[in-house]
């Protein structure tokens, strides 16, 4: 897992661009995405995952098993607690089989695990988005010592061995509210990647004619920033945040895998994968199912982010 998935994209994001055209580009992006079969499949899969996350209690009511309910009958106590039946106990009752040793329903845990993944990654994305845009614009707009301070902080955070630090911090902090802690820690190390791009683009934009025109007509700093510069950064922000989400999902799963994520019994994909490791030879489905969900979610988001970027780049080139 890496906390720097967005790093690669930095150079590629298109040069800053003429204003306007955003409603049109939204429609155009939608059109491009719906025409592309691969992208459509990704959207579909993500829609399912989000639906699972949002409607988790309803879905598990339908499937009949909650994420925490033990089912002793579904496991074989005399064999160390392996699920009864083929493919990890997949049956009409347990759609994805059960967890070894306690018989918790895997389907319910996948559904609730989606909640954890999505909530944490979205919150982290929002937090890094806000931090990155605000600090990046501050640095790029005011330059001078503000830029110096912010840029050095960014350099420091980006050079820091973030994963090791996250593990250390999360394991030393008291249990408390784990999801909030995860979001804060992930965001603290994630925002510089966005801020750096925003800073560079703000610098170019700040020297453009329309900004000078706005200043000449008496606009204050705040107005210039929010009315003139921010709208022009929209494309970059959309692309970078879309591409950041899968990174954060991976980071959350990774931290849970290493035992510093959400605390049990909360279901989390990373944790499920972690506990499945010792069972790989007797119950491979226990690994395969959460693994597949994590893989497909990250893949879908990455592909989709890529398509959106292409669409925006094309739009920019055209305009």
């Amino acid at each position, binding site marked *: 897992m890496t906390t720097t998935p967005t790093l690669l994209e930095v150079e590629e994001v298109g040069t800053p661009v003429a204003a306007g055209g955003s409603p049109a580009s939204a429609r155009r992006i939608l059109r491009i995405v719906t025409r592309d079969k691969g992208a459509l499949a990704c959207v579909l899969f993500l829609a399912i995952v989000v639906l699972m996350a949002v409607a988790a209690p309803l879905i598990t009511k339908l499937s009949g098993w909650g994420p925490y309910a033990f089912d002793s009958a579904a496991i074989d*106590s*005399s*064999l*160390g*607690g*392996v699920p009864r039946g083929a493919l990890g106990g997949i049956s009409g009752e347990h759609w994805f089989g059960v967890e070894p*040793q306690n018989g918790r329903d895997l389907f319910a845990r996948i559904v609730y695990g989606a909640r954890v993944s999505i909530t944490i990654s979205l919150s982290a994305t929002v937090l890094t988005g806000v931090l990155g845009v605000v600090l990046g614009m501050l640095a790029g707009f005011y330059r001078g010592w503000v830029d110096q301070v912010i840029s050095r902080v960014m350099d420091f955070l980006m050079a820091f061995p973030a994963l090791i630090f996250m593990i250390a911090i999360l394991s030393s902090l008291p*249990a408390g509210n784990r999801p909030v802690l995860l979001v804060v820690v992930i965001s603290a190390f994630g925002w510089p990647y966005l801020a750096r791009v925003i800073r560079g683009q703000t610098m170019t934009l700040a020297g453009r004619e329309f900004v000078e025109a706005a200043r000449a007509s008496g606009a204050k700093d705040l107005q210039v920033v929010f009315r003139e510069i921010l709208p022009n950064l929209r494309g970059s922000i959309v692309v970078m945040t879309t591409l950041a989400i899968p990174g954060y999902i991976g980071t959350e799963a990774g931290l849970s895998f290493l035992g510093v994520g959400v605390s049990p019994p909360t279901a989390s994909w990373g944790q499920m994968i972690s506990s499945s490791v010792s069972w790989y*030879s*007797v119950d491979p489905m226990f690994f395969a199912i959460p693994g597949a969900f994590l893989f497909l979610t990250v893949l879908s988001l990455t592909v989709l982010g890529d398509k959106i970027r292409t669409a925006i780049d094309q739009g920019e080139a055209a305009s």
Partner: protein
Amino acid sequence: MKRTSMLVGMVASAALALTACGGNGNGATGDSAGPGSKAVQGGTVQVLANAAFSHLDPARGFDGGVNNFYRLIYRTLTTQGAAPGAEGTKIVPDLATDTGKASDGGKTWTFTLKDGLFFETGAPITSADVKWGVSRAWDPEVGIGSPYAKQLIDAPASYQGPYKSGDLPTITTPDAKTIVFKLKKPFADFGSVVAQNTFTPVPKGQGEGNQLDGKPIASGPYKVSEFKPGAALKLVRNDKWDKKTDAVRSANPDGFQWTFGLDPATIDERMIAGQGTDGDAIAGSVAAASVARIQTPQLKQRTMTGINGCTTYMGLNTTKKPFDNVKVRQAINLAVNKQTVRDAVGGSALADIATSIQPPSVAGRVDYDPYPSPDHKGDVEAARKLLTEAGFEAGFPLTLDIRAQPKMQAMAVAIQQALEPLKITVKINTIDTATYYEVIGTTSQQHDAAITGWCPDWPSGATFLPPLFDGRNITPKGNSNLAQLNDPGVNAKITEISELTDVQAANTAYGELDKQIMALAPVVPLLYEKVLMLVGSNIGGAYLHDGYSGGIDLVSVGLQNAGK
């Protein structure tokens, strides 16, 4: 004390797989007659292990795994037998000619040493060496192992071991073969106490500080020839040991080779495959995930199973509200679903369900179930009734302390799930493995409940119930009475039993005391965990010893074919 041993034992024993590297037993293929078949002389037994031994110094180490190992290199005045079942927990003479002669109403104990006893250095073992070894238990730096010598033998309050305070006047050695102990008060079972590691002879003047942890001075059939802390340990024969003086140790192989630091899953894989020298290997209990894999007839022939002689329990802190109410504690006892707790540690292959405090291996233990439920799945209705009577039908929060260990977490989640219908919200408080016992043993830091375990130091109620439930033993730090139960009736009964001079009668009385304590429900007995071991195909003479947390008796194990 022994509490640590048990839980470390869980990890360590899961890990104490025998290593099969080095050595020479390539002839270990072909059909085996199973682990119980006869061992021959010679060869090297490999031991694959995850955790290294805590200490090589006999005054320091004190847990089931290390006690078993010490018998290979050290001898004590008496020791446990070497046979499966109750024979193994019977105390037999070792360095001494008998299990001791009591005088002065059980306050003075006299032991006589056998002839022909030598250290690995060739020096004879005298009563002065035994005395030196025992008095090391008072040294604040060295005497961190078995506490019984310090607890029972009379000594000046300021005594700090032979290195600091010199001679201990309450142990006398009238001649080179005789040693006399003066106790604080009569103790009928002192013959079992002198089987503790602290009664190992150490040459007079030696063993200060870390000396023995690096280079033990052997009195048993093997000596350490190579020791890389945390990585490997090699034992070879101690030719100064005379088999004629030792009725317990068969000492079959020419040597032992430990490999430490192996991943438990790796150990299981290697033991299942049994390739090369792994055929000469023994190991600790297999992981739950491997249980299903060792069900083939070939592998079943190589497995051994038995209880580890410990009780895993959940202590309820009786000083916290609402756990000061006996009905609440009883309700929790009724409600816990022990089936799911057992499944959490690996199912029926790896644990039996506990109903009483003392495990089945303890002498005088009575099998009873004070809080029964169908299939041990918990009786929520009966529990709810008790809670309603106590006025807690609306539920309450419960903070459960556990070690940061997957097995513990799985048990905690099972308990959390079982108490949910009673509106008892269990908050699981995970504590770092290294500091766990320190935290829960500090009364001010302890929460409402904690999962832990206890193993008897020898299979008698005397080493089980008084340390856990005597209210007069509650200390602010290093407390083992987790329930902080201070019941006048229980305290009085403990005093009464300790004054009995008949060991049999005392054990029977402890069985009854178990019932008396469980009526107060200060703990929820959860499991008697089992060991499930897979040994190499060339291993013979292996059996699980009840006295050493169910480990393979190392002084009896050997190879079926010692072909070089």
